[in-house]
């Protein structure tokens, strides 16, 4: 019998798995960088060199001044990576949080309510899932950006001004892509508990739909939601980086890592460091998130197995 309950216990169990622990620490470091990166970066992300200096500072190999070297425009790669962490992690994080929230809401309600509501919503979600993610993302991102930037809807204009049309449309794309997936996961988790005694007990005392969804069902889908959320985060980073690599994601001069790889690709042989550092950063970030969520999943599986 366990005396601890919930989250602390969960963290404690993860801490017992070295791989999961290390990857969790790495993820936390990356998140920390996304928050404080710009403050600690030695240079501005867009500090391009002008005049004669520029030629000398272009594509310089790592040195004490520029610990990861400079790129083709003479910008400090280390600083760019630090600045870029925000775009690379922040945007996907916000977007997947949104997707997870909306998806959870849809999943909970369709799973619990069922009937034609479930049928209709699920069919719609299936249609969205019927298009390969990247294809949908490609078509949508080229569609949404101009719509947003030409919008005259009050409120949206300010929003677009503040966040930028590109960031908003990336977010919308991620949300649209992942809501169906999250909803599906949450729906099936909801179906698992929907007919359990304690839910029926709540029904029988006349609890409202919202109370049942959020106070009774939600806690039991939360663990799978957390795992799914971290998976979504890794896919969102993956997607944003890939779109950046295709030149469609976060727009320059923002130092998004995928875009950095794209820009550096031309200098693959001359200045390989310009490519390897962002590649390494992306790879280690995504691998860490995956190993972390795998650890979480294993802990959760043990939990369930034991109960």
């Amino acid at each position: 019998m366990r005396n601890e309950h919930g989250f602390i216990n969960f963290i404690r169990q993860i801490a017992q798995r070295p791989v999961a622990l290390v990857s969790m620490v790495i993820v936390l470091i990356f998140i920390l960088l996304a928050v404080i990166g710009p403050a600690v970066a030695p240079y501005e992300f867009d500090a391009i060199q002008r005049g004669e200096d520029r030629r000398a500072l272009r594509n310089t190999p790592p040195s004490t001044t520029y610990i990861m070297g400079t790129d083709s425009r003479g910008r400090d790669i280390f600083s760019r990576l630090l600045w870029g962490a925000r775009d690379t992690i922040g945007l996907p994080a916000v977007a997947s949080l949104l997707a997870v929230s909306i998806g959870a809401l849809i999943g909970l309600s369709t799973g619990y309510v069922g009937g034609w509501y479930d049928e209709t919503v699920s069919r719609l979600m299936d249609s969205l899932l019927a298009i390969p993610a990247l294809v949908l993302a490609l078509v949508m991102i080229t569609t949404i950006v101009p719509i947003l930037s030409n919008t005259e809807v009050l409120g949206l204009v300010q929003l677009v001004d503040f966040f930028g049309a590109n960031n908003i449309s990336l977010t919308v794309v991620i949300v649209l892509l992942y809501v169906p997936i999250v909803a599906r996961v949450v729906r099936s988790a909801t179906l698992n508990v929907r007919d359990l005694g304690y839910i029926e007990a709540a029904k029988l005392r006349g609890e409202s739909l919202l109370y049942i969804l959020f106070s009774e069902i939600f806690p039991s889908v939360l663990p799978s939601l957390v795992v799914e959320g971290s998976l979504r985060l890794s896919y969102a980073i993956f997607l944003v980086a890939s779109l950046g690599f295709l030149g469609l994601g976060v727009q320059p001069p923002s130092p998004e890592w995928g875009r950095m790889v794209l820009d550096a690709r031309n200098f693959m042989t001359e200045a390989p460091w310009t490519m390897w550092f962002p590649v390494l950063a992306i790879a280690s970030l995504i691998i860490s998130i995956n190993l972390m969520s795998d650890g979480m999943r294993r802990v959760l599986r043990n939990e369930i197995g034991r109960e």
Partner: protein
Amino acid sequence: MGRYVIRRTLTLLLTVLLTSIIIFALTQLLPGDVAKLVMGREASPSEIDNFNERFGLDKPMPVQYVRWLGGFLTGEWGRSYIQGNPPVRPLVTERMANSLRLAGFTLLLAVPTSILLGIGAALNEDSWLDNAISIVSLSVVGLPEFVTGIVLMNIFALGLGWFEATSLVSDTMSLLDWIRILALPAITASFVLIGYITRMTRASMIDELKKSYVRTATLKGLPRPTIILRHVLRNALLPTITVIAISIGWLMGGIVVIENVFNYPGMGSELVSAVEKKNIPVLQAITMIIVFIFALANLLADLLYALLNPRIRLE
């Protein structure tokens, strides 16, 4: 089973139809005036009118949609807006053939490897081997394709010169030429697949191994290999087959990034260029094909699952 097949097929058609509407609507929203994109920014108004008239773009959207759908269904897929306006169908089918080659080669690499890895990991659950396989598969599955692609290209094409860095496809290539071209994109794609399939196989294998019928088989006195091969594998591979079928859909349209890295003329890269050029007939045809293959792959997965699973087959 018959009822199941019919229901799934109808659902598939419905999904594809819904998707075609979504796609059509999205393509209409694509930025930029088509005529201007094709005819150039300095095209004169009469040039643009000529173009719109020629491709029926002066008609209202629903009319365009119905025309397009009708044409699509009767095999008349229209003509490309660009490059000598070739008919869309042979163009797309050629790309499809290329994508199929890549998909086939990828599956050839990925499926046996990952199933073996998955079984190996499952049979040694929680051993160092299992952990190593898990960590590696989790890692490769998470790497963006452009990362693996670029790394592989640097090592094997630019460094060692074993394979081609860019895929210049021609009609007269020999099988060996094809392999040299397909190898790197296929390895890149199979990294992702190996990650998925290995994990799937491992998980379902472990689940199956814990089931009571394995105990029954053991207590019949059957040797371990017989139990694995005759009893466990068939049940354990069911979910794997699903994943493989679904990944066909992904390989046909979802590997835009890989095709981009290696400049491979598959459907994904054609799609990107159609989006950029707003070459709507090609764009629509390709997305429809991708969606259709994607849906078909899903259907195939379900049907295979049902067919191999007597519980569903005999329902």
